């Protein structure tokens, strides 16, 4: 089956810009928290099957730490912040000044610090999105899981899977620019609900069908 999204390169550029503005703001926040330069790659807009989406995010069985928030209000969807658990621990260490913390061992302090970090980052992303589109976007309380990528990301597919076998995933990768040996790499994954696209395009003055 072909995917039902009748979007041109221009539509994809608009979605890329969304990722750029959102993740850019989040990267700035992260950079302040850990006091290091954070580098961001150009966002990528993937129109992919659900299986392909999990491959893009590292593979279905790959264990990652993820923060999930629901976007509510003027723009609905899911947002994930996904990072290797060891790197999540490293970020938490930088944030708290205690390098011994590990999110992987179920330490409630480390986990709640990671959750707070995720809250700040997804909050910055969504705030920038809200400002840019002038849509009144709220976010749910965040929640955290450390588990198989495939098991976690399907949470973001519940709405779109009712209309399509494909998802549109706006992915931005960031890394810390300073350390060369032990580079941190995190992913912001935005999965708008199906009707969110028309709101985005309308808000930015782009006709939905190109």
């Amino acid at each position, binding site marked *: *089956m072909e995917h*039902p999204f009748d979007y041109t390169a221009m539509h994809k550029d608009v979605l890329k810009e969304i990722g750029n503005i959102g993740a850019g703001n989040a990267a700035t926040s992260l950079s302040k928290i850990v006091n290091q330069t954070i580098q961001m790659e150009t966002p990528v807009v993937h129109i992919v*099957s*659900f*299986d392909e989406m*999990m491959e893009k995010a590292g593979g*279905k*069985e790959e*264990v990652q730490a993820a923060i*999930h928030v*629901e976007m509510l209000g003027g723009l609905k969807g899911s947002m994930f912040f996904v990072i290797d658990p060891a790197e999540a621990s490293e970020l938490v260490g930088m944030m708290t000044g205690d390098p011994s913390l590990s999110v992987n061992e179920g330490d409630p302090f480390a986990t709640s610090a990671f959750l707070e970090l995720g809250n700040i980052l997804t909050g910055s992303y969504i705030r920038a999105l809200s400002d840019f589109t002038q849509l009144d976007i709220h976010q*749910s*309380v*965040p*929640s*955290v*899981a*450390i*588990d*198989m*990528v*495939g*098991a*976690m*990301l*399907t*949470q973001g*597919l*519940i*709405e779109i*899977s*009712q*209309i*399509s*076998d494909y998802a549109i995933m706006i992915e931005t990768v960031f890394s810390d620019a300073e350390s060369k040996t032990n580079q941190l790499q995190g992913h912001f994954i935005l999965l708008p609900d199906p009707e969110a696209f028309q709101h985005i395009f309308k808000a930015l003055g782009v006709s939905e069908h190109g």
Partner: protein
Amino acid sequence: MVKISQSVKVGIAGLDIVEHPGTITTIGLGSCVGVVLYDQQTRLAGLVHVMLPHSDISKSSEFKLGKYADTGIDAVLELMKSRGANMHRIKAKIAGGAQMFSRQGSGDTLRIGPRNVEAVKEELARRNIAVVAEDTGGNKGRTIEFDTETFLLKVRTVQLGERMI
């Protein structure tokens, strides 16, 4: 005749069947439910990776049958029947249906896992298929593999490792 052991992989919202002595597997079940149907006499097994409870919520006319509990189970049964499985002998083992993320005051979408499990059980009961083993609910992702030699379902989670049901 020498039979070559096959290992069949089923994707998200996918479905397939395997003959003895093969195995059939699906990876990274979260809120989704893996439904294994098997006939011990013909040693045929089928698997569907169910994402959503019922096809009446579908907003499109064309979809992968394995996405929903009702259409997915029927499609696997059809495939099995066409290969000689007997409806009266078919049993089920199910796994998945976790709630991966939880927070206070959250709506229905976070509870999709338990709703999927409920729907799968209803659809199986409606077709008189007994669930002989299950590993459902909780908050952990699962990878499953069913073996047509032993009729055991291997369930792997990150925290607890492997168990057979």
